[in-house]
Structure formats: C-alpha cells, structure tokens
C-alpha cells in the first residue's frame, strides 16, 4: 500500500537514505545492463571483423535517414525526460505531465518507425533471418548473420524502449494523481536514468549498425 514515493519506507531511517539507496540501486542495475548489451556488442565486433564485406554490405542496406531521424527522436526524448525530472524537482505538476507525455510520444514514435517502417521493410525485402530470408546474392550466410545481429540488437533495444514506455505511462498516471512533489520525485528521477541509458545504447547502435558500412 505504500509505493516508494508515498511515505518514507520502513526500512530506511530518513528520506535522504532512501533517495541515495534508490540512486545507487538504479545505477547498479544500469551496470548490469551495460554488461548485458556488452555481450552482444562483443559478438558483433568479432563477426564484423571476420566478415567485413558482408557486414558492410548489410549496413548499406539499412536506411541511414530513418536511422538518423530515430536518433534525433530519442535525443529529443532524453531532453524532455530531463526536463520532466526538473519539473518534478520544482514541483511543477503541469510541466511534469507535459514533458512525460512528450517523452512517451517520442518513444512511441521511435518504436513505430522501427517496427512499422524499418523492420517491415526489411521483412518485405526478404531480409528477415528465420522468418523471410530470400537474399541469394554473394556471401548470403554472412549477410544473414549481419541481419540477425541487426534485428536482435535493435529488438532487445526496442524491448527496453517498450518497457520504458510502460514505465512512463505509470509515471504519467502517478503524476496526474499528484503523487510527486519536490520531496518525493525519486521514481521520476530513477525512470529518467533508465530512459537515458536506453538512449545511450542507441547512440552506439546507430553508428555500429548504420554508419560504418563504407557508404562512399
């Protein structure tokens, strides 16, 4: 019956301890996420170096404009998320809800573009490993490996975005109900950390998948 933004939780001595514990907890969780994605990045690095021509070809088959657009969308959403946390710190309920909503919309835009535009396009082009792979040019198996990594890495990232969208929805409802104040905005701040982290993953995915394919 008490959420972490309600009263001081029983196990803590004061609000400051509670806040510090939440921060440390979230950052430690993000450390686990770094290692989680790190395993994928390691595998990608190795295969890219083993099969460079195929991976570059695969990279060129991705639409850089959409990728760049999506990157900008996510960066925007990080801005609005940071501003949302700031609004919560200052007790500005209206601004908080507005910025959370904007972040949510930008997040949905990213997900929509990724699934409905990019993934759907690749699927229709026969570039979806395991589901619809019809490419029969040279080096097909290694190109398939690239697309496997592409779909898996962006898929795991998108899964994290979807979870983030869920968290944002809950935050908006909580903000609407007036549960946040300058003394209790922990949850918003921690969610912000998560959201920024997911943005950072994309900051690395974008160049590694889209930009180093020898597009010149």
């Amino acid at each position, binding site marked *: 019956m008490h959420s972490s933004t309600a009263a001081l939780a029983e196990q803590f001595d004061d609000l400051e301890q509670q806040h510090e514990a939440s*921060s440390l907890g979230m950052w430690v969780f993000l450390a686990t996420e770094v290692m989680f994605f790190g395993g994928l990045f390691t595998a990608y690095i190795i295969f890219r170096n083993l099969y460079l021509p195929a991976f570059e070809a695969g990279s060129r088959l991705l639409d850089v404009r959409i990728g760049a657009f999506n990157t*900008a969308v996510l960066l925007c959403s990080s801005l609005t998320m940071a501003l949302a946390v700031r609004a919560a710190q200052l007790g500005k309920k209206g601004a908080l809800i507005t910025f959370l909503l904007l972040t949510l919309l930008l997040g949905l835009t990213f997900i929509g573009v990724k699934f409905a535009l990019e993934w759907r396009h690749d699927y229709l082009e026969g570039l979806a490993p395991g589901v619809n792979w019809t490419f029969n040019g040279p080096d097909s198996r290694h190109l398939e490996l690239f697309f496997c990594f592409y779909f898996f890495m962006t898929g795991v990232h998108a899964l994290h975005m979807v979870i983030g969208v869920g968290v944002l929805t809950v935050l908006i409802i909580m903000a609407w109900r007036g549960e946040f104040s300058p003394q209790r905005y922990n949850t918003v701040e921690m969610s912000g950390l998560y959201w*920024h982290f997911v943005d950072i993953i994309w900051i690395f995915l974008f160049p590694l998948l889209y930009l180093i394919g020898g597009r010149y």
Partner: protein
Amino acid sequence: MSGHVVPKKLYILVFAALIVLTGLTTGVAFINLGKWNTVVALAIAVCKATLVVLFFMHLRWSSNQLRMVVAASLLWLAILIVLTVSDVFTRNWTPVPSNWEAQIQQDVR
C-alpha cells in the same frame, strides 16, 4: 531531499550539441576515411554518451560512489571485449602446417 536542479539552458545546450554531433557522424559516414571511419564514428558516439551521462543523468553532480559504479561497468565491459577479441585475433599467430589436410589423409590410411 537534496537534488541539484539543472538550469533549462544547460539541458538545451547539451541537446543542441547532441544533435550537431549526430549530424556530424551521419555526414562523416559518407566520406571515405578508410579505417578511420569506424574510429571517428565510435569517438563521436562516446562524446554523445558522455554528454548524456554527465548532464542528463546528472553524473557531473553526483557522488564519487556513483561515478565508481559507472567506471566499474565500463572497465568490466572493456575486460569482456578486449580479452575475448584478443583470442579471436591471435588464433592464427600460430599457423597450422600448410599440408595438414594431406597429413590427415595419410594418418587415416
């Protein structure tokens, strides 16, 4: 509860820098720098990530303890990548004898 409030202007400045860097990295992708394309792309990505971590995630105003957590995660990521990759890339430093296939045929007979 303590919490550093960051001026709006700073956020917007950081955001602008991030957009500029994104444009830069996208543009550079179309220029032939050979193997430096990858280096530049990653370097710009690191800059962007640093901006997000320091300013959006408030690490610039956070305790040393939290900075240690970030540093540790990056160090461990480096251990994973470096040691794994170093195996893959040093495997052919000890070359297999060039006639190994013939040798096996002979041994089997």
